[in-house]
């Protein structure tokens, strides 16, 4: 096996290497090239293409943004949302701190305390969006599917602290009661056929 086979690995069999246009040498060749380019009509092909695109109605690809918006896919990772439990309406977040731990940008901070029933309660949940890189690890690691990424990409604000406090990202109660909380189907959510993978715990062990 020769070295040549390794040094030319980018050339697969069947490739045609384009050597570029052959430069004319003599004056006669220059004249022939200029003449053929003159009568080739390539310029008119360009003219026809733009005219055709102009004459087709409704051909515009513009989205007039404030009036029209792109529908975001479920896996799009924009500003986070904290979801509520479907049954009771209380927070899904159990304050386990996994998201805080896994966050690569170290931007999540959870404050927890014991409430009057001696249950762990999340008193504050903040995300520093100046540091967040929207990697989605927090949504993926969350065991309760409480912290998720929403499709809210319009995160311009007067205050850099906006969107980041617990009351900003938690589903508002009135919105929840109006049944508007969308179940999250994106990053870290269970797949549609997740039920088929559930097995009984083998108690025999």
């Amino acid at each position, binding site marked *: 096996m020769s070295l040549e086979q390794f040094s030319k690995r980018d050339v697969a069999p069947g490739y045609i290497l384009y050597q570029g246009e052959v430069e004319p040498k003599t004056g006669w060749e220059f004249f022939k090239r200029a003449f053929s380019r003159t009568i080739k009509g390539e310029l008119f092909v360009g003219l026809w293409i733009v005219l055709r*695109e102009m004459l087709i109605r409704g*051909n515009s690809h513009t989205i007039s943004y404030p009036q029209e918006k792109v529908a975001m896919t479920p896996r799009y990772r924009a500003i986070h949302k904290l979801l509520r439990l479907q049954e009771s309406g209380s927070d899904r977040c159990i304050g386990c701190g996994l998201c805080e731990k896994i966050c690569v940008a170290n931007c999540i901070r959870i404050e927890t305390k014991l409430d009057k029933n001696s249950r762990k309660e999340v008193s504050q949940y903040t995300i520093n969006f100046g540091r967040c890189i929207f990697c989605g690890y927090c949504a993926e690691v969350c065991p309760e599917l409480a912290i998720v990424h929403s499709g809210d990409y319009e995160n311009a604000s007067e205050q850099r602290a906006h969107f980041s406090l617990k009351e900003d990202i938690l589903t508002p109660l009135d919105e929840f009661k109006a049944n508007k909380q969308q179940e999250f189907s994106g990053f870290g959510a269970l797949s549609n056929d997740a039920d088929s993978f559930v097995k009984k715990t083998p108690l025999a062990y």
Partner: protein
Amino acid sequence: MDWAIVIETIIKSIVVLSVVAAMAGFATYIERKVLAFMQRRLGPMNVGPHGVLQLAADGIKLFTKEDIVPQNAVKPIFKFAPVIAPVTAFTSMAAIPFFPEFTVFGYTVTPIISDINVGVLFVLGVASTGMFAPLLAGMSSANKWALLGAARTVIALLSFEVVSGLALLAPLMMIGSLSLIDINDYQIAGFTSWLIWSQPMAFLLFVIAGFAETNRTPFDLIEYEAEIVSGYATDYSGIRWGLFFIGEYANMITVAFLVSIIFLGGYNPLWIIPGAIMILIKISAFIFLFLWVRAAWPHVRPDQMMWLCWKILMPLALINILITGIVLI
């Protein structure tokens, strides 16, 4: 002195100034819309229905923008240069007959400010003088991009001026007059008498030279963004830049009128269409061609433009003159 003529001329001048300036302004809107549709965009949409009033918004922006004169610029020339562009563009319109004669309240109006017997020469000469605007602007700006733009102005002038002059010579040999009214009347016999049929090569050459003269796309090397930012106008903003803009669009309209009158039968009526409508159709079509070409074609480099003008177009123009001369004899 006949005061009626003085007053009539002043009124005509004001009408031409205001109408052409309004047309030039509206052409910017049309240009943005046509380019947008050709590139599958919407263009201006928000100011007025379908963005018709975008022109007003642009005007307010241009007029109220801060007027900046760079520190190292040659200030008197820097301030004066933008004025040359619209002044020469509008002055060159003095010898152009815009419409056929018409009668208002029993008074016959000839819609030409001054029917001088060297009309074509005057129009081309004054329009070429307009090249002083980018030249002086570029040289006085103390900016290397502007200076390059000024240098390119000169080579553009040296290239296209030969072609436009020689291309026009052949039809002028056939007509025997430089007055644009005579040129128009030469083609009065109808569609088949249009000079484009007897002088197709001259028509082609003059249109190409017209693109170069108005700095439109294939030849807009004096303000080519990708190479020299904005060319001669790099340091200009606000109303001074706006004056260059008005001058460019007025020049487009002038060239459209020239081509329509010299080659496309001018304002002669065709079939049942009256002459005034005919020339409006022609100049609209020609301005659309300007925009169309801008949407479709790439730029040429300065050396390519010089090569094209001097090595291809000028010999073709000379051969055209020679053949015309032989046929005429």
